């Protein structure tokens, strides 16, 4: 048990939640642990965190981390609406949405897209296993064409790629990772939380019970064999200093609005994370080559989030009282007189 206190004065244990009720070996449990690590290391104050989710295995996970934070397990596919509303009510909250591939790409595709359009300041994590776990193994809309169900049925439909969808909608932060790749997932979660605007993080997260067999493209072995990371990601929070000791030209440094930095160390071909069209191309080329491209695909660190475009004041809306919200007696009387 780590007793080291973070900047919020809390130990790592303070970021734990209830015991998981998911299957042993579920990728989602790894993501929960990555989340705990990221939140602890960032020193997020639990009372400022709002854990939002829809329905499904993935959506249960907010109960398994930061038990002292508020959480809202909503209805299927509607996490974005709840998150949008909560963010408008209190823009000081750190909104952390957790969804799945069914919750996002099937029943919730519309809300997913519209949340991105509005650039609501929230992190949107998709725990993506290509299957419906709680209802016992049906295909989801992210299942790849030709991938095989446990009992042998072959998927005959094109997948919906949440990252490609997000990019076409102008999402201001798009990343993909793998639940087994904590080295990459943790800094991406941190960066997503620091980003202002909607940050979509699609994490392929194998379902050990229904989708971890041969023929699945969301299995541990398939992803391990086919993952192609576009850059090594590290995240330097605003309260730490940046020490760059890489060779010039090998690292890209993206500064976020709060002063934190995402450092991207080139692995293969150089990818500019601020080039949206390049991001789409990287995804498409990876798919053509049978690879799962992971890493930070795109970020626009300077975009205006929804609360800003709505011209909300810095004071959370929930904190206004009668005197701030009602018309004055004079205004009221004058307004009524205009109806005469």
């Amino acid at each position, binding site marked *: 048990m780590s007793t080291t206190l973070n900047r919020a004065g809390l130990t790592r244990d303070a970021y734990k939640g209830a015991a998981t009720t998911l299957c042993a070996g579920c990728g989602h449990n790894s993501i929960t642990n990555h989340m705990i690590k990221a939140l602890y290391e960032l020193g997020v104050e639990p009372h400022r965190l*709002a854990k939002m989710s829809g329905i499904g295995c993935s959506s249960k996970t907010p109960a398994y981390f930061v038990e002292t*934070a508020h*959480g809202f397990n909503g209805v299927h596919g509607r996490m974005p609406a709840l998150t949008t509303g909560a963010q408008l*009510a209190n823009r000081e909250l750190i909104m952390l949405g957790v969804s799945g591939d069914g919750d996002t790409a099937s029943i919730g595709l*519309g809300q997913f897209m*519209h949340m991105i359009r509005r650039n609501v300041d929230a992190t949107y994590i998709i725990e993506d296993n290509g299957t419906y776990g709680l209802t016992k193994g049906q295909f989801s809309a992210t299942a790849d064409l030709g991938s095989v169900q446990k009992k042998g049925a072959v998927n005959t439909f094109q997948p919906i790629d949440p990252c490609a969808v997000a990019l076409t909608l102008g999402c201001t932060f798009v990343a993909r990772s793998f639940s087994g790749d904590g080295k990459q997932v943790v800094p991406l979660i941190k960066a997503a939380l620091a980003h202002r605007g909607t940050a979509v993080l699609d994490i392929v997260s194998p379902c050990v019970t229904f989708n971890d067999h041969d023929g699945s493209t969301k299995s541990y072995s398939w992803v391990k064999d086919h993952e192609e990371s576009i850059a090594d990601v590290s995240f330097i929070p605003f309260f730490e200093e940046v020490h760059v000791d890489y060779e010039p030209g090998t690292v890209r440094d993206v500064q976020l609005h709060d002063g934190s930095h995402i450092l991207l160390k080139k692995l293969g071909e150089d990818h500019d994370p601020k080039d949206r069209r390049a991001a789409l191309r990287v995804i498409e080329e990876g798919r053509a080559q049978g690879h799962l491209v992971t890493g930070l695909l795109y970020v626009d660190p300077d975009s205006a989030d929804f609360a800003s475009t*709505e*011209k909300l004041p810095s004071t959370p809306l929930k*904190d206004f009282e009668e005197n701030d*919200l009602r018309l004055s007696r004079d205004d009221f009387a004058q307004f009524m007189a205009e109806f005469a």
Partner: protein
Amino acid sequence: MTEPIVNDLTIQAATVNGSGSQTANLVLTRAIFKMGIPVAPKNVFPSNIEGLPTWYQLRVTPEGHMARKDRIDILVAFNAATWRDDLKSVRPGGVVIHEESYSTADARTDLVYYAVPFSKLAKAKIPSDTLRKQLANMIYVGVVAGLLGIPWDAVEHGVRRQFLSKPKAVQVNLDAIKVGLDYWQDNFSKQDAYRLEPMTGRVDGKVLVEGNQAAALGALMGGVTVAAWYPITPSSSLCEYLIAYSDRFRTDPKTGDKRIAIVQAEDELAAVGMAIGAAWAGARSMTSTSGPGISLMAEFAGLAYYAEVPVVIFDIQRIGPSTGLPTRTSQGDIGFAYTISHGDTKHLVLLPGSVEECYEFGRDAFDYADRFQTPVFVLSDLDLGMNLWMTPEFKYPEKPFDRGKVLSKEDLDRLGGEWARYMDVDGDGVTYRTLPGTDHPAAGFFTRGSGHDEHARYTERADAYSRNMDRLSKKFETARKAMPAPVIDESAGSSSGLIAFGSTHVAVVEARDALAEAGRPVDYLRIRALPLSPEVAEFVRRHERVYVVEQNRDGQMFDLIRLALPPDLIARLHSIRHYDGQPIPADAVTEPILEAEKVTA
């Protein structure tokens, strides 16, 4: 010529949708109101942008009756397509102002016709090509002003008031009205009995307000800070007014910052979801919709009921599906809204019976929602929501917001962090909540549907589930006593009673006058909220026959009352229903009651 008929008439303008006729009708309404005469306008419009027939009824009575009237005194026939049918609605001896080109060769002979060459006048006298179509309607305002003797200063007021935000338009409209007035004076001598004369004392302190304007103002005064909506007739104007009022009253003139977020959502599911998310996070939030939108909100309504999230849902009722009669009025969502969603759900419902109550309930709905931590439905309708109604000026609220049982950081410090989200510590079924962002280690809890214990911990235990269900019932019973009580008038001292709610009220008021005149006075109870007050059953017990009047086919309120009555009282109830899409006229109440009373007498 017969006895003059003064200040007691119904004008109906039959026009073409999208031609600008609504503006002309409103000018006429405001001009007559300026004379001190009570007005009751109703717009009957199609689901269409341009081209289909539309009717505007303007009823004028010295008593201030506000229900729709079936029989028309003065028809302004401006639509060739409907003119033959429109003639049928005019009472014998009535007046028809019509476009000269419509042939009256074989038309009814018991009417007075004034043929006016509207198109020719418009062509000759309105110089602007672009405005001609719109202004042509103003010509009939002038003719009606001449016919009824509306003073020019009242006409001027009507125009200025209507174009409050477009003062440049005042003169061209006045010019067009003058064309009509001049034509009347130069070409006609009065052949009919109808007159308008200025009155005093009947409209003092009164204003003309649409129900949706009133509800928007109410929501603003109730402290709404997040509103999410999806456009749907007849509710759209509620949020559009809210936007306009917020631009004016919630916007910092220096920074442009707004103390409200109004979001046009992608659909009604998202709209109510945003409102629930915002309410959960501590804002006063709302959505506004109509029947089809309510259908889409069903799942979220159930979550909000079980998760105990306060949210206000306005339902401006209309006739059902979008491919039906979406621009016609109805009270058909009562039963649906009351119990909407999966499992054992039931909701608090406010039933405003006037625009003043649209304002008051639109405001107080937020208090009820916060106090009982549950969705509150405000059921208005198209008639109430989209028509102008004469009303006393609204009162400024004297009470502060009731934010209900919310524990702050200081409260939690005081309690040593000992609290449980769903624990009934006060015995009223209403539990304490905390808001996200409360800086206390014990503040957080996990919100989900019905599967939780008192501490908001996940459980599927049978005893915890049923305990929670019983507590929710107890909370509902607490709310039953707190919701607006019925308004009861037993001054008739009759053995017969009448129960109604919502916009049916105005027809009942007028019907009671008529019934009293016919020697059959009836007492009256107006329901203002669901769940039903125990006073409803008491009222039934005090009367031998009770008529429940409503605007839907199946008698939804009749059914709810029957369910709430002890068996020995059920036979006393009789159902009167009106469901043709038009606002209920008084006759639709008077006649069936007279018929029934004849039998029982």
